[in-house]
């Protein structure tokens, strides 16, 4: 159970603002806190533009954090440089969203996978490295002859598995999966998800799984956090979140998932969610969901709700509770 497990990653009051000329600040991630325990899969869901990808990229150090702190194994990694940044990069890796854009089209698959090993001086010697590349290709279900091929010769699902092999090449313990399946066909999504689960069990990996597809997130995650316009609105164990969603946004999000059963789908009631996600530029205090929320009160427009623990580690940020 999470309580007995050690915290691998602690994110506290993380903020990431982008300055936009003449317009002000885009508050992509605004005061987000959560912990990820060793060996678990932490799901982060939300619609496009909610800041989930920015959050992942800030944690891995691709963007400098505006404020707040990120700690890995208790060590502050918010503003790492030089050899210490290297220390973290050896431990944390990322899998990207677009299998067509995340592999350099001019490099062979073997070179792509070897890049990380080279940077960290792992598996020195041509033979050892070749062997490791073939091992990794086998691990993700590709043939070893594929090492000499170029990315454009592969299908989307195969490319995504090459991306996974590249991340695994440095033997990381923590992997941020940034929408790894959203660009793939349904039949291929299951392949990749199964592979991720298998790798987690075999290698003891910890995942931060970012996605907008709630059914897949629920399937793979131990705990799930829901983001809306830079804020975390709800966080709970995945079963709990799906069976008892509390935040009105989570409820609407869940009801919108199409169910592959014509009878249920035709009778099901989609909770009306008026309007669309607003602009996260220069936000005023108040609940960001208030303009679309069916239960919005006076207070919601003035005061930003904070995450409250309602017991059983079910956290929700809403004035209704």
């Amino acid at each position, binding site marked *: 159970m999470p309580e007995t497990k050690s915290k691998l990653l602690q994110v506290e009051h993380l903020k990431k603002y982008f300055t936009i000329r003449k317009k002000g600040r885009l508050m992509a991630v605004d005061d987000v806190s959560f912990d990820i325990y060793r060996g678990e899969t932490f799901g982060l869901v939300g619609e496009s533009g909610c800041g989930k990808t920015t959050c992942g990229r800030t944690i891995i150090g691709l963007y400098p954090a505006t404020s707040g702190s990120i700690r890995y194994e208790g060590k502050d990694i918010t503003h790492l440089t030089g050899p210490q940044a290297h220390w973290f990069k050896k431990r944390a890796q*990322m899998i*990207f969203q677009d299998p067509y854009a995340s592999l350099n089209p001019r490099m062979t698959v073997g070179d792509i996978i070897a890049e990380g090993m080279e940077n960290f001086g792992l598996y020195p010697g041509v033979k050892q490295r070749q062997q490791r590349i073939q091992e990794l290709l086998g691990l993700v279900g590709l*043939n070893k002859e594929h090492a000499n091929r170029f990315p454009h010769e592969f299908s989307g699902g195969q490319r995504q598995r090459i991306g996974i092999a590249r991340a695994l090449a440095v033997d990381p313990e923590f992997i941020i999966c940034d929408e790894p399946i959203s660009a793939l066909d349904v039949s291929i999504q299951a392949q990749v998800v199964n592979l991720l689960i298998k790798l987690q069990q075999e290698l003891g990996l910890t995942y931060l799984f970012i996605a907008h597809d709630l059914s897949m997130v629920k399937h793979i995650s131990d705990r799930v956090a829901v983001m809306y316009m830079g804020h975390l609105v709800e966080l709970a164990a995945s079963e709990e979140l799906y069976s008892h969603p509390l935040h009105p946004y989570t409820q609407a999000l869940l009801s919108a998932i199409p169910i592959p059963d014509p009878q249920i789908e035709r009778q099901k009631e989609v909770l009306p969610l008026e309007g669309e996600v607003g602009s996260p530029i220069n936000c005023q205090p108040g609940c960001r969901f208030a303009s679309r929320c069916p239960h919005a009160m006076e207070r919601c427009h003035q005061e930003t709700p904070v995450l409250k623990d309602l017991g059983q580690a079910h956290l929700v940020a809403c004035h209704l509770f």
Partner: protein
Amino acid sequence: MTEQSAFKTLTSGDISADQFVRVGVNEQLSEQLQRPSISYWQDGLRRLKKNRVAMLSLGLLVFIILMCIFAPLIYPHSFDEQNIAITNQGPTWQHIFGLDDLGRDIFARIWIGGRVSLAIGVVGALVSLLIGVLYGGISGYFGGLVDDIMMRIVEILVGIPYMVVVIIVSVFLGKGMTSLLLALCMTSWTGLARLVRGQVLQLKESEYVMAAKVLGTPSYKIITRHLIPNTMSLIIINTTFSIPGFIFSEAFLSFLGMGIQPPLTSWGAMASLGQQQMAYYPHELIFPALALSITMLAFNLLGDGLRDAFDPKLRQ
């Protein structure tokens, strides 16, 4: 119901029962790639080879270059040999393209002039390629303030008409090939610098560059491994297109008398001389002008072919 059973008997027929043995999935087989392995460059070359116009242009260019190198060595008449007795003579078997007003053999001069024109085109393009790629690459990769300052400098340079630069340089260094090259190179790299900068800015945000950063790849490797190879095709295409630009600039300046000085010559200088005799002895203008236009056309057509073959945006 009857319809259904009729349908079913259709399927079997002549197939023996032993065909109905379960084989299951062969994972290795289902991951197999059907197409032969082919790299980006091989694929581009294949496309280029299928482009007849581009291949014809390439052949023509190779021919012109070979002629420039070897024709003056074999041809019996030297480019500065004068035959005052038969000035302005039209084409004969003796003098294939005829003679000019000083009695010099035009065929010999075409290939000597071609050496100058092509050398200026190629050297100019290479120098501007070097400066442009470095400048644009640095500006794009570091971004922010560096980028702002470097791009303002480019804008200022673009604002200066190159004629002015040519005149100033030739005042200090005198007229001739070096000052011409220097002046052309000083102003011509800006276009490529902007192109490379734009490309690098875009590639810098691509997921594979992010992946490289996450993997701890140092900056110089990101530039040499990810950014440059992926801008290479655009650079090559652009350079091919810029060669005729240099050739024409040289011709234009020589035509105005600010370029190559006698006794050396170039296609532009020859056209300038021929133009004075145009009404009576058109061959003195036609041959250098033809050489110039054919070369420029060939470079442009080859550039088009290269773009069709290598530009990622045009390759579906």
